[in-house]
């Protein structure tokens, strides 16, 4: 039996899963056990296509879970919407978890039926930028890459011939590569909002690279781990004080870096330029609606405030659609970067939205997606 608050180090008992999975395959094994033992009916997994592409699929096949991919920093997908309307278990970065919780607040996800296995995240990268970076910075053919990792502030790529090459993330980002912009100023690196918070930070000694550090965050986390242990799919042991301290130290470094980069990334906007700051880039909008479609905290559906006041026949330089979205998302935007990723005009929507939302959220001491009981400051109606 494990308990809420436990900090453990564990791994998959199946040798193949342990070898193929990231950091000992504990997450894969926990998800497989949840499905196998009926804790959930489906699991969201990333179906691996290559090192730069994976497709989220929803499966009820344990073998498919076991065959799913390990960590892919260059597949920046938010998985929250794939969990809707299902009794499901899913791997989740901190921002995936934030989105799940925001959707739960809006009645779109039932947290009782959603088991979230959180994964530490130092940031994700755009696949096409990553390929370019491999050629220009690493002198590696992208086709030769078989694995990647982020460790001690360095981005490491492993190639077919067994070689590893590491470059400091700072150096990559100075050259215009590295993590997506929103990941650079993100300060939620350990998914303490998930049911389990897993990752390789704090895995030391002979277990380094072949086990996962796992913090049990709540009763569902207990269920997930106990279930996997009972199924014989994982083995865990208490993490040492040293391991716990190292994990905390890595997190501190990453959070401090995020805070520093936030100051660099967000421009000071003089009061007299505030409207122009938003209007100028948004005048290039082609009204595709992709930013709404991909937004993992949007729960409105097709008939929504931002679309109902907007028409192409209007020719405002910044559409009503964007104005409503700026306001509407000001207390729920988690700065996951998905909207910027998919914008066909490369409008830095996440940056604009964050410029609007972050000060508002901080003023109200509110961080979206951390706890389902935290009421968003601008919730119009609260139904009991």
């Amino acid at each position, binding site marked *: 039996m494990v308990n809420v608050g436990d900090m453990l180090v564990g791994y998959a008992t199946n040798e193949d899963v342990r070898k193929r999975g990231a950091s000992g395959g504990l997450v894969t094994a926990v998800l497989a056990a949840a499905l196998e033992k009926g804790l959930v009916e489906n699991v969201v997994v990333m*179906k691996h296509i290559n090192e730069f592409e994976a497709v989220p699929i929803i499966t009820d096949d344990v073998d498919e879970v076991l065959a799913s991919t390990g960590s892919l920093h260059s597949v920046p997908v938010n998985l929250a919407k794939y969990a809707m309307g299902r009794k499901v278990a899913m791997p989740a970065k901190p921002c995936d978890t934030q989105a799940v919780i925001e959707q739960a607040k809006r009645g779109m996800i039932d947290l009782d039926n959603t088991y979230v296995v959180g994964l530490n995240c130092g940031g994700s990268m755009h696949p096409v930028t990553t390929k370019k970076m491999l050629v220009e910075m690493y002198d590696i053919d992208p086709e030769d890459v078989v694995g990647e990792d982020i460790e001690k502030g360095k981005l490491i790529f492993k190639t077919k011939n067994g070689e590893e090459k590491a470059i400091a993330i700072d150096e990559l980002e100075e050259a215009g590569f590295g993590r997506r912009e929103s990941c650079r100023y993100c300060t939620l690196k350990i998914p303490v909002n998930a049911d389990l918070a897993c990752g390789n930070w704090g895995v030391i000694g002979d277990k380094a690279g072949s086990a996962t550090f796992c913090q049990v965050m709540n009763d569902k986390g207990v269920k997930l781990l106990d279930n996997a242990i009972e199924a014989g799919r994982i083995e865990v042991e208490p993490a040492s004080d040293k391991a716990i301290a190292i994990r905390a130290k890595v997190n501190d470094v990453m959070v401090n870096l995020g805070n520093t980069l936030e100051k660099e990334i967000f421009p000071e906007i003089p009061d007299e330029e505030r409207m122009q700051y938003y209007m100028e880039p948004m005048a290039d909008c082609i009204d595709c609606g*992709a930013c709404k479609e991909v937004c993992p905290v949007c729960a409105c559906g097709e008939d929504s405030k931002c679309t109902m006041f907007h028409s192409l026949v209007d020719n405002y330089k910044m559409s009503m659609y964007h104005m409503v979205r700026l306001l509407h998302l000001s207390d729920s935007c988690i700065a996951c970067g998905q909207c910027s990723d998919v914008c066909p*005009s490369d409008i830095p929507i996440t940056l604009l939205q964050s410029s609007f939302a972050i000060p508002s959220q901080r003023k109200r001491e509110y961080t979206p997606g951390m706890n389902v009981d935290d009421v968003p400051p601008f919730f119009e109606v609260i139904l009991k």
Partner: protein
Amino acid sequence: MIGNVYQTVCPGCNMGCGLYIREDEEGALAVDFMKSSPANLGKLCRFGMKLAHHYSKATSMVDGKEASVEDAVKAASDKLKGADVTMLGVGNTTNEESLAFSKVADALGTVVNTGMGVYSELPTECHPTVGVGITLDEIESANRIALFVDPYIQYPLLVRRILAAKKIGASVVSVGWKDLHLADENRYIDPDLYESELGLDSESVIIADVHPNTDPGWVKRMLNLALKTQAKILFMKPFVNATGVDLLCKGTGQKGISEIMDGINEGSIKTLVTLNSDPIELMPDSDAAAATLTKLDNLIVISSRDGPVNKMADIVIATEPLYAKAGSFMNVEGLLLNNSGESTTGIDSMSTLSQNLGGEAMDYQNLHNNVLESIVQKYTKPKYKELTCEVLDIGPVEEKGNLIYLYNPFMWFDQSDDNDFVMVNMNMVNKLGLSKGGMIALTSDAGTVNMRYRVEDMPDGLILTAKKLPVATEWTTIVSTEAV
């Protein structure tokens, strides 16, 4: 196919935007972003985001009645034996299906027309440059970009490329129909002044387009501008495989869509076979096109979509949806892109048709190998061909109307959108006394239509539309205007 997910390419234009189509248990479709796609990084335009509405499945029909695909193929074989057949395939399907269609044409002793009549009016040496332009990445490194299209409405995935070029110092001049936000200069000048006024040189890029209704004189003018300034040129195209089908059909008829419709009206074309090409959608005047098609003895449609031409066809041979097909496409920059679908029902039908007509049997793998051999080596891009032709005689300049089509994917497929308005400038609003939120009446020989309007900065007297209108008879039409 990955689980229930297909990796495919957006059929909205020839940009080659990769995406995923997700099919649920009930067959409902959803679009997902394929961020590793080199042409678009997963980004999609307004049409791409609405693709789930685009894939309306076709049903095989014989003489207005639902039929099995086998019966439809047999009926088509019976009608085509010994007939004088015209074939149309604009490039709305895979290279492999297009090649299979060509082999059916071989069996019939005819050729496949791509509907792009402009090619037959250009010297052969210009053909490769019009066919495969510069790479999309090269747009980003241009020092000056001259735009002869409206990227926001017509080819939206160009916007980010042009903005990226601007970020590193490029200047942008638009020579379109209305002011563009991303342009540093919006010019409305005499075409004879382009060379002297647009400031283009060998580091510049010209972006224009060719489509079935393009004025050949205009394409020649663009080529001349590139020749005289040494600027590189990229011709955007409206169909997913327009580049591939052009390369596969090189040296053949290349009859334009208008020429085909004229042939039907004159009675010289009695049998038309189309492959994912709907003349009613392609022609500027849908009603006139539909009326023309009634003059055919035989209209045989091979299609994956349920377009308006299907309802008029004597025979419809339904094929699988585009996203589900095994096969490849070639985008505007010459990049070969593969579908993850594995279905070959369209090819199988055409193979049977070919054999029934005395032609060869076909299978997907052979066709795919042929495609690789005939148009590209796998995953390599044909290089941009510098223009080597002489300056072209533009010929008589067509008189333009004041109502102008801004062709875009919604128009090419007659797909509904929130574009039920025309664009006019403030002078016209004032002159006609148009009221805010009111309507403008447009009248031509084809009748009158009342439209909402949007105000844009654009030349006096012009009316732009991104939607096909019943008063339009060509891509430009003379209309009179009044307030409603």
